[in-house]
């Protein structure tokens, strides 16, 4: 087992009280697995990703444990997590294009990052250059300022730097959202290549775009309003989803070839519940066409067939 997450609960301190961003998440990822973490805005996917590396001071770890390669990750303790960050768990953040300090050369940023982890730059420089060449960038990039690079180039640079120490787990947070279609494909294929070459063991790719996940991920975990809804291999999620939310979501995505005059797609009416005081029972209840009496009791996240877990009374029946 590469990553085991057990009943993880994370709240956000906010102006109006605690936002229950992630509530009791339990799942695991194997070595070499790329798991897509999908959901709409406010579902908690970004919070879940960030909680595994503890990168946000407003987050409060309320309960649950995380184990990476058999060792427990001290995600409640900011200082202790520092040993794990970048070496064992690494993140390519949202807006990584802005993650490079504009007043420093790219090479200097990399050097400072490595030396803050007690890794002398010279020992890894050769590997850094090798990997940059692999992603289609030349060594000259290290001598450039971020403003001289295009969005796709910056994205690839940040990906290479983040994975330089071969972390066990890489969290990629909405890294394709700000890119053009052509760069999205390049970056998506790059993620898979990093895994295939062993630069990272396993990956969590966080995005709202299910289509990208279908191309890139082995398994997909769908979240809704802070809870896990469904986890299954990518083919199953897209081809035969069981959770009503997943099914409605998949059917609302237009594909090239579908036209309004021929096929009317439908969205999901209503909106997700507020996470400040979420309702009891299944959180999708109000918008679910299949809701019935039992949904007032919260459905557990159970395995209905090998590799396929769902939190829904109807689907599990």
């Amino acid at each position, binding site marked *: 087992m590469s990553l085991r997450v057990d009943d993880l609960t994370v709240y956000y301190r906010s102006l109006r009280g605690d936002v229950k961003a992630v509530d009791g998440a339990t799942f695991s990822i194997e070595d070499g697995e790329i798991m897509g973490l999908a959901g*709409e*805005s406010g579902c908690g996917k970004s919070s879940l990703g960030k909680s595994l590396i503890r990168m946000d001071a407003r987050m409060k770890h309320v309960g649950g444990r995380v184990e990476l390669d058999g060792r427990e990750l001290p995600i409640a303790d900011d200082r202790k997590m520092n040993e794990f960050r970048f070496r064992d768990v690494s993140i390519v953040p949202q807006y990584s294009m802005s993650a490079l300090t504009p007043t420093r050369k790219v090479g200097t940023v990399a050097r400072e990052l490595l030396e803050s982890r007690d890794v002398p730059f010279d020992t890894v420089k050769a590997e850094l250059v090798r990997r940059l060449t692999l992603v289609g960038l030349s060594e000259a990039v290290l001598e450039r300022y971020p403003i001289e690079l295009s*969005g796709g180039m910056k994205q690839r640079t940040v990906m290479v730097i983040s994975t330089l120490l071969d972390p066990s787990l890489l969290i990629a947070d909405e890294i394709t959202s700000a890119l*053009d*279609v*052509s760069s*999205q*494909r390049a970056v*998506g*294929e790059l993620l898979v290549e990093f895994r295939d070459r062993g630069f990272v063991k396993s990956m969590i790719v966080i995005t*709202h*775009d*299910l*289509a*990208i996940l*279908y*191309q890139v991920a082995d398994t997909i975990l769908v979240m809704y309003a802070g809870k896990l809804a469904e986890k299954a291999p990518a083919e199953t999620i*897209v*081809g035969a989803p069981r959770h009503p939310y997943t099914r*409605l*979501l*998949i059917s*609302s*995505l*237009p*594909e*090239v*070839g*579908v*036209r*309004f*005059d021929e096929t*009317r*797609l*439908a*969205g*999901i*009416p209503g*909106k997700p519940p507020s996470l400040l005081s979420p309702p009891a029972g299944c959180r999708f209840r109000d918008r679910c066409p299949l809701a019935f009496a039992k949904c007032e009791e919260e459905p557990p996240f159970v395995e209905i067939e090998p590799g396929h877990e769902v939190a829904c009374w109807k689907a599990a029946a």
Partner: protein
Amino acid sequence: MLEGGRLMLALDGVSKVYKVGTFGGKRLRAVNDVSFQVAPGEVVSLIGESGSGKSTIGRMVLGLSRATEGTISFEGQDVSRLERRRLHAYYADVQGVFQDPFSSYNPIFKADRVLALVKGFFPEIGRSEWDEKVENALNAVRLEPGACLGKYPHQLSGGQLQRMLIARALLLDIKLLVADEIISMLDASTRIDVLNLLGDLKERGLGVLFITHDLSLGNYISDRAVILRHGMIVEAGATSKVFGNPVHPYTRMLLTSVPQLHTKWDATRPRPVVEQTSGETAAHLVEVEPDHLVAAVGETS
């Protein structure tokens, strides 16, 4: 390209040139010799990646930015350089909705202020008649007046905010809506509802200039498509023809790069190579079949 006499919006040789660099030495052609038309009740998609100039064209059509070259005509009249009163009259027929719903509302005021702002177009109407108009407009976009009126923007969702902006445009009984990436910041589950709304309005005679980077959305909703790259048109025509039979390498590259559900990116099929273009002169468009124009390849350099 279209049946004569039924034009609503027509762009002819429109360019937008910025002077950049110190002392304004260099020239940046954000839009380069673009021509296309929108007929009443028709949805035309402007599809392009960032830097393609699609938003600039939208702003020029809305009179928020002035074209450097070329003309923009609306119902036969030249609207490229309107001022004050004529611009005001133009806005009774043409309105816009933008990408970020939370940026489109002034956060210190209530959300329905955007509706009140257009009352200036109807000086003669009384209070109760205005309230009725507002209610009808909100119902037309499937918003419940009680749930939206009197609230602040941060109390409403992105989907509701975008719909309210469409309602604002409907209050004016406009003929053309410029929709600039209006659903790209909405969640997937609400996107399709707003899009379907546009489709319904189109069937009632509203013309839409639909600006997007998302090919699947363009394909879903539009009658005609214009593919832009670096400010120039590379392919244009009826949507079924442009998407069904893409000719230009750039269009084909876009279509193969779009991630699809149920079909994996074909790893073995090489992506079409598109040569770099940075030229000043736009390529001229060649008709490859009726209602399908393509920029001549090799001329752009």
